[in-house]
Structures are given as structure tokens and as C-alpha cells.
């Protein structure tokens, strides 16, 4: 999987988790714009709170790898794609509305 800026936060598993599934999230950005930075920060906060140790965030800068935009049908920036668990979910925007983010990621149920 070609990536440019990989910020992996896969924490070593703690006491045997009930769900071994690791969330794979991909954040598409176009350069270090305020919006992208905001989005990443917002995402990290939510993930730390709800998915501690069970998630991976892959940040893809389309400025560097523009051809990747077609794969996930990226139009808007920033776009967050939840690749795992299935089904794939897509959220656009700077993720500032955390309630919506959680609904979009289907995170409430997990907790």
C-alpha cells in the first residue's frame, strides 16, 4: 500500500481485547492545510478516546500521490475513509463535529 506519511499508532495490545479487529482509517489530505491539520487532530482525539490501541491512521497526501484519489473516489478534502471494519465509510470535512464523526464512523456502539 503506497503511502507517504504514515503515522501509525498501532499500540501493542493490552489485556486480551474482546474485539481483535484493528480499525484501519485513511485520511486524505492535500498538503498541510489548516483544514487537514485540524482534521487529523480531531480524528486523533476521537480515536484515542474510543479506539485506544485498536486503530491505524494512514494519511495520504494527494499533492504527492494524486493518482490515489481515484481509488477511493476522493473529491472533497479532507476525506476520512474507514477501510476496516467493513463496510467502508467515508466522511468528509475537517471532522470538527465530533458527534457526527462518531455517528459516521459508527463508533458509539463499540463503546
Amino acid at each position, binding site marked *: 500500500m503506497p503511502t507517504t506519511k504514515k503515522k501509525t499508532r498501532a499500540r501493542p495490545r493490552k489485556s486480551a481485547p474482546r474485539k481483535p479487529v484493528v480499525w484501519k482509517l485513511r485520511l486524505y489530505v*492535500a498538503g498541510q492545510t489548516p483544514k487537514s491539520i485540524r482534521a487529523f487532530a480531531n480524528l486523533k482525539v476521537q480515536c484515542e478516546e474510543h479506539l485506544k490501541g485498536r486503530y491505524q491512521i494512514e494519511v495520504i497526501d494527494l499533492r504527492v500521490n494524486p493518482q490515489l484519489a481515484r481509488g477511493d473516489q476522493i*473529491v472533497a*478534502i479532507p476525506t476520512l475513509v474507514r477501510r476496516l471494519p467493513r463496510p467502508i465509510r467515508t*466522511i*468528509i470535512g*475537517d471532522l470538527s*463535529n465530533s458527534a*457526527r464523526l462518531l455517528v459516521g464512523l459508527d463508533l458509539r456502539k463499540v463503546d
Partner: protein
Amino acid sequence: MLVDIRTEFSVITANPRILVESIAAFLEKQSMMKGPSGPHLVRATREAGRWRRHCQPTVEHGAGMKQMRQVKKASQPSSKTLPKAATGIQGLDEITGGGLPRGRPTLVSGGAGAGKTLFGLEFLVRGATQYSEPGVFMSFEESIPDLTKNVASLGFDLDRLVTDKKLFVDHVSIMRSELGETGEYDLEGLFIRIADAVQRVGARRVVLDTIEALFGELPNPSILRAEIRRLFNWLKQKGLTTVITAERDHPDRLTRHGIEEFVSDCVILLDHRIREEISTRRLRIVKYRGSTHGTNEYPFLIDDQGISVLPISSLGLDHDAPAKRVSSGIARLDGMLGGKGFYQGSSILASGTAGTGKTTIAACFVDAACRRAERALFFAFEESPRQIVRNMRSIGIDLDPWVRKGLLQFHAARPTYGGIEQVLLLTHKRITSFQPSVVVVDPVTNLLMVSTQNEVRSMLTRLVDFLKTQGITTIFTSLTAAGALEASEADVSSLMDTWLLLKNIEVGGERNRALYVLKSRGMEHSNQIREFLLTDDGLRLLDVYLGAEGVLTGSARVSQEMREKAVVTFRRQELESRRRELERKRRIFEARMVMLRAEFEVEEEVIQQTISESELLGEEVVQDRGQMVLSRQADSSSYKKDVRAKAARKR
């Protein structure tokens, strides 16, 4: 009287007040020419109102027509310098004066099925193949395999162009159901995708089909609008000639989400309308900043070669005028046309009421052309080829051998099969592929079934121009309703060089055909009506009888001729007898003269005799007296004197 207000006043679209005024002026003119105008006025006013409503959106759109006009006026002198990108779409470049504005976005708007996607795609394909300008197609609706399949039927091989790196097709699909929105976003992703695609093929042209689909898929329209505006500006900055398609869902608006306000350079409207169950496609350039352009609605069609727009004046009036003549196939008709027939490359109208022999005249002409080993093309809009061949055989014209030899081709189809534009295009295609020197269109009036008079006229104008540039002699037949003989149904007479009028003359309880040459440009032609006979061995033209009782034809003419013959015989006999009488009189006179002379001679003889006798007698007396004197010697000379004096006194 039906007047199509829209065509009559097509110049004025913006100002309803001016429009109404000009309609009033027009009606006044009409009423002066054609009598009372009450119902026309009502109808026209209604039309004007409708038209005003119709043109209102145009006024509102595009930041106002006034402003547009000003801009247009201001930039008129530089219109030559405005660079244009040829579309390669047949006819469109002529209307736009060279193509779409280069390096600027053009909005192509139209309803569902108007041909927007095809327009965009053809723009790219033609650009890539004909003008070596690679292109990028961003599809927001159709997937790439669908798109490829759809346009393959039009002869566009997208796959090959893509592998040749002349075209890049990208499908942008967003599933709303999988999408959530949390906060601000921008369309940088799309920008990047387009930029990447452009860079990959070195594109000069971009098509966004239909970008408004994003409104349905992405939340927050205000952000989207701002982003789309930014996108257009960005495309312009990059110098990409862009076609943006947009769906038109309401006649008042050009686009569903009003993106036309971002595209200020060129707006083209595609329309697919159904009139009386027959569809016609129309194209109109709503605006074109910095350039003059055709303002009319132009019919266009989509066939296996893509889009063809048919501008009315695409060919102009600069065709050749050959002085060569071609025979009409009827000797007597040639005689009526200065003895030589039609001009080559001229257009001939044979109009007449039903059953006057229009098709027959056309068939004669075709037959004559085939005899000269020329190719002929027969467009039959009413009869099947077999029927025509059979019918013509009944008058001794056998067209079958020509068909078998390949000199004669029939193209028979009801015009209702497609719209009028389709008919025109088909005619063009058949003519181009067959290259005939003679064409028959039988009858043009059938075209009115599928269209309005204006459309038929404009179609025929284009057809006539086309045929003339090709130097093809053409006979159009036209069915006229009884009564208005000299008004050709589609008002096409002014397009025609020669007009043969056929009519039925009713005399003595029978109908007979008559033909005359109503006009024939540039040649001496007969002003006579000829009787037109269909016999077992072809057409014959006879002089009609013009007598005190008017024009006589058929059996009336025959009986009149008999009557005339009788009169002539009678006169001859009378003359003969007069002559004989004269002779007789002369003879009597001569006989009398002989007798008189004889009598005279007899008398003369007698008189002569008497004269000579009396002369003799006189001489004898004198001699006798002398002798007596001599013998008597009685008188002296004095006695003689006395006697003389006495005689003088007595006198």
C-alpha cells in the same frame, strides 16, 4: 394566416416592449396586405405574451442581456483575436465562427437526453483525433465501461484513445449513503484528480459531465458552489478549454443549481423537443462573450457519426451556374424551355393538384438521365420503388433496367420515420455516397407531415444549396391543394429556378391535365398552356384549343377541332363555287364579246361598202358636170363670178 412569431421576430429577444411594438407594426402591414386582421391580432397578442414569458429567463440570466450586449459590442473589434478551439462537430464551428472559446469554460445545458454527454465526448474525441489536443473526460454520472459502450455505437473508440494517451476518462462517483459530513471541506481532491489527469495526457481540453451531480452527493451546497466557482477559475487559469454540462430541469433556468453564473464566456443550449409526436433536436448559443455567433436555434442530430448541426446558411450562395442544358425527357417540354431543357444544376419544382402527373414528369426526367448513362437518385416519400416502377411501366417508361444497371437508386421512406433533420441528413448522405447527377424529391409536401412550414423551408433551402454546389439537377414535386395553385405548399417557389405547374382543367364533364411553365430563370420559355397526355407510349404535350369558349381540352378539344374542320370545308366549297361562277361569267362575257365583234364586223362591212359606194357616186357626179360644161360651153367667166357671189351672200 399563421405567423410564427418567434421566427418572424427572432432578432428581438430581450425587450418585450420592442417585441410587442414590432408585432403591432407587422400586423398593420399584414392587414394592409391581406384585409381584416381581427383574429390574427388576438392570436398574435397571445403569442407575444407567451413569448415574453419565454424570453424572460434569458433576460435575467447571464447577468442581464444588456450587459452582455455591451460586452459584446465593446469587444467586437477584437473578436478576430479571440482564440477559439475547433470542436470538429459538424456545423457547430460554422455557427460559432471557429469553435468554443479557447482556454475558457463553456456551459452546455440541456434536458435529459438532449445529448450533452455526447457533445462533450465528441468535443474531446474530435480534439484528440483531428486537432491533436488530448482531453480529459470527468464523468460524474456514467461509469467508464458504460460510457465506452454508449459511444462505441457512434464510432468513437474510447479504449483506443485511452491507450494511445490521447484521452483520459475518469469516473467520479460518490455514494451519498456511505458519506457523512463533519465540518468544512473543499474540492481539492477533485482539483488534484483533474490536474493529474491533465498532466498524464497533456490535455488541452476538459469535459466535466455533469458537475452538478455533486450537489446531489455532497452536503453543504454553499461550500460546493464556492468550490465549483473556484474550479472554473482554476480551469481558466490553466488555459484549459472546458465543456461543463449541466442538466436543465426547468425552462426558466439553464441549470438546476444555477452554476451558469460562474460560466460567463459561452453558453450553449441543447434542446430535445417533441412537436406533434416527432422529435427534433435544437442547439442554440445563448451567449458567446467576445465573439459574434449565430443566434438562431439550429437543428442538430445525433447519428452514427456523432452530432451534426445544420446551419441554414452553411453553404452560402456561391455555387457555380453551368450553362449546360439537360433534357427533361419530354421533347415538347424541352421545346417550351427554349428548346434545350433545364439548366444543369438547377432546381425544378413540379407542383400541381393530386393526380396531375408530377411523379410521371419526374420519372421521365430520370429515364432521360439514365439513357444518357447518368446516375439518378429518387427520394420517394410516398410510394414504394416497386410501385413507382410498375406505375411508370403503364405509360411506357421502364425504370427497372436502370435500377438493375445501378444507374438509378431509390430511397423510399416515410419522412415520419425520423424528424426533418434526419431526412435532410439522410438525403445528404445518400447524395454524397451515390454522386448522382439527377435527383428527384417526390414530394416535398410530405415533409410538412413531420414539421412546420418554416422548418421545411429552411431544410429545403439547405438541400437546394447543397445540390446546387454539387451541380445536381433536381426535380422537387409538390402537391398543392386545389384553389391555391400558384402557392407552393412549403413556400419554396422562390428557391426554384424552374417551376412547372400542372393542373386539371374541367371542361365538358371531364378532367384533363394541363401543364405550363410558370417560371424558368435565365431562359426563354413558352407562355402557352399545353395539354398533357399520358399515353401508352409516354407523355405527350399538345396545344390546347383556345377559342371563344376558353381553353378546351380532351374531347371538347377534339369536337371543337372537328367543328373547325367542317367550317373550313364549307368555306372551301363556297369559295370553289364562287370561283366557278366567276369563270362562267367570264366565259359568257367572252362569248358575248365574240358575238358583238362578229355583228360589228358585219355592220362595219356594210357601212364601209356604203361609204365607198357613195364616194364613188360623188366623183361621178363631178366628172359628169364637168363634161357637161365642157360640152355645152354655156357659161362665161362672168357668169361664174355671179354664181360665186350669190353663194357668198347666202352664207
